């Protein structure tokens, strides 16, 4: 009996099993959890983390790291608002923000791939640079949006479900496909598994890294625009510490920090576990300060479980 439970939890789908069990438990015990309103709220709350986790998954799978995502989200939100105000066109504002995000990512990628500077250091630097730019451009204050249509990005609904959730779902599908069914995805995993072997096998490793980071930047802009729309302004201090939540969610979802291992379902589950934990604590009126502690423990527990799983495979 105990061994079969062990097998289930330490097996390939262990995380999914835990997730389903936890979800069922919470649904039964926490009042107001399993309601349409709360479910939509829950999904809304994970949009930012979930969107960025899609590309962070590629970054980690390729044995890289990106700490600049939080700053980039705030920066792109600012750009979207300010460019919309300046041009009078929301469309142009969004376009500018997407370009700005991609540019930050491109910068990261080029520095890391071409100048061979450690990804951790590079993105630690851009994290501060970009946050600084967001603060400078707004003089440290929140910037309101002139055209109220901008709010509609986050408020509009399709089939009763808010647009950001659709965007999140679409990105999950797209990046799941890219990871498993395209050369780009397979090369990413190969690079993470053994970068030198991949290079000798004809994978253009530098080019791949630049693309991965550029994509990451672009997706940060998507998240930044949605966030700005939801909070109805550009906030230079938005999304602080976001990078850690995103990386936590990925690791929770079984993405290996040593590279070469990642699944989209894992990341989705990771994102949802983090979201549910927060949601439940809110429903139970647990003070925000405690939430940090709980989140930290969840992450530790997940990594511990992952460790047990790989050593179980090793000893088998």
């Amino acid at each position, binding site marked *: 009996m105990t061994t079969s439970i062990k097998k289930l939890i330490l097996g390939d789908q262990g995380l999914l099993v835990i997730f389903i069990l936890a979800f069922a438990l919470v649904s039964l015990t926490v009042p107001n959890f399993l309601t349409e309103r709360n479910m939509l709220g829950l999904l809304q709350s994970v949009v930012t983390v979930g969107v960025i986790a899609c590309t962070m998954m590629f970054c980690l799978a390729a044995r890289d790291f990106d700490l600049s995502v939080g700053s980039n989200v705030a920066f792109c939100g600012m750009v979207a608002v300010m460019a919309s105000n300046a041009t009078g066109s929301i469309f142009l504002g969004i376009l500018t923000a997407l370009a700005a995000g991609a540019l930050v990512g491109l910068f990261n990628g080029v520095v890391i791939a071409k100048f061979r500077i450690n990804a951790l250091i590079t993105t630690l630097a851009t994290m501060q640079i970009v946050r600084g730019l967001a603060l400078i451009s707004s003089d440290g204050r929140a910037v309101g949006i002139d055209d109220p249509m901008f709010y509609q990005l986050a408020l509009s609904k399709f089939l009763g479900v808010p647009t950001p959730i659709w965007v999140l779902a679409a990105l999950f599908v797209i990046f799941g496909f890219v990871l498993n069914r*395209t*050369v780009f995805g397979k090369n990413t995993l190969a690079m993470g*598994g*053994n970068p030198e072997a991949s290079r*000798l096998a*004809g*994978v253009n490793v530098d080019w791949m890294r630049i693309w991965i980071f550029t994509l990451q930047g672009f997706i940060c802009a998507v998240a930044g625009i949605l966030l700005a729309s939801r909070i109805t302004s550009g906030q230079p201090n938005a999304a602080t510490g976001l990078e850690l939540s995103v990386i936590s969610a990925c690791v929770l979802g079984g993405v290996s920090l040593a590279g070469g291992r990642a699944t989209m379902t894992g990341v989705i589950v990771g994102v949802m576990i983090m979201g549910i934990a927060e949601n439940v604590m809110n429903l139970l009126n647990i003070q925000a300060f405690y939430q940090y502690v709980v989140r930290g423990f969840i992450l530790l527990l997940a990594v511990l479980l992952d460790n047990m799983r790989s050593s179980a495979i090793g*000893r088998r």
Partner: protein
Amino acid sequence: MSSYLEFSGISKSYPGVKALSDVSFGVRKGAVHGLMGENGAGKSTLIRILSGDAAADEGTVRIDGETQNYQSTRDAFDAGVVVIHQELQLVPGLTVAENLCLGRFPATGGVIGFSAMYEDVRRKLELAGISVDPTRKVAELSIGERQMVEIAKAVMLDARVIALDEPTSSLSSRESEILFTLIDRLREDGRVILYISHRLDEVFRLCDSLTVLRDGRLAAHHETIEGVTREQIVSEMVGREISDIWGWRARPVGAVELEVDGVHGEKLPVPASFQARKGEILGFFGLIGAGRSELLRMISGADPRAGGQVRVGGVDIGSGQPAEAIRKGVVLCSEDRKFDGIIQGRSLEENILISSRRHLTRFGVLDLRQEGEVAETFLKKLRVRTPSRKQDIINLSGGNQQKVILCRWLSEKGVRVLLVDEPTRGIDVGAKSEIYDILYQLAEEGMAIVVISSELPEVMGICDRILVMCEGRISAEIGRADFNEQSILAAALPDEASAASVG
């Protein structure tokens, strides 16, 4: 004579593979016991069980009559079992003595008494007959010296059983000789040594007794090595007689396919030029460090080159990255499979298709069905032994991994020049002949093949022509009709006179 170390009825299964089944044998005290077998025969699994790294499904290990029941490598360690792996486990930034005392520093109140420690280690090293300065950093030592330090560690821990896993694979012959002397001493001390090697010479030089494993079973156990012949051991290992492992056959050689013209770079300053023809197997022989790998790596784009040109079929292949060379038909199977050959943690299928899958896609989207078929075709063609193409490559033996790398390049379209650096390093006898057969077949199909090997019999056995390198220059070219050990070796050894005039 009773056995000091005894394996009885050891069985172990991994998913899809029965790694060991009912293996029993014993080793007496003060003996060097050879453990031989092809890769995948179960040697490493047995060592992992001995060292507590894996648990046997059935059977027991007894040391000095005591049944060992390890839960971890730590338990085995405490029981006096030390395994010295091919990948050494020393901290490069610490000195020899620091490495030897790691975990047990002689300290008073947390402060290490360095002079006492160095003195103590120096004495112990001398006693063991190991001449390594304890104050030197491990990073500065040669591989041979590091191996000595590993053994010193085992001696200082007073290990009862020492297992050496292919200790000479990266040692020069002089370093090997020092190692053998040291092993002789350990034997006199009354320790049990398990010696794993592919090299028959060493086994005959060192071992008192011998066990041969094949496909996870005990193929033969020789209580004494006297009277055992090489042929006998080889046939016990492969389960059949091998008459001529090279199996070279004459084949038509076509036009010049590869032209290397004045290629040089940072690690090979003297420009090198040579040609290889369609259907030809060209060998490169030389001492380690003669510049052979550096040359091939520059040709394939693995390392940058400062100048020179590489032409395939008369067309310049450019001087870019491997990706470019591959598209022009030049591919490299590198020397160190683990470091830059296989992609650990990924399936055989993905390891094979990493380069060639670009031919199987539409707008970057994969055709999984076709990919599976291609992988399956080549796995079958090269007879890779695996339960499935989804298997993680790390679970395969060295020979099968090498075949997967060859599959990678065979599945790539339009390969015209195959560069192979040490095609059979760490590969057992049976798989070697198979790899040679693959090379012959590819040459017959019209590929130009360039092989580097440090084993003279191998280059002489399989190549049509040999280029000898010495200190970064091509020093001789010899056709198959004129192959002769003395002349090849003479060309590979640095010329004393010229060295003197330069120095």
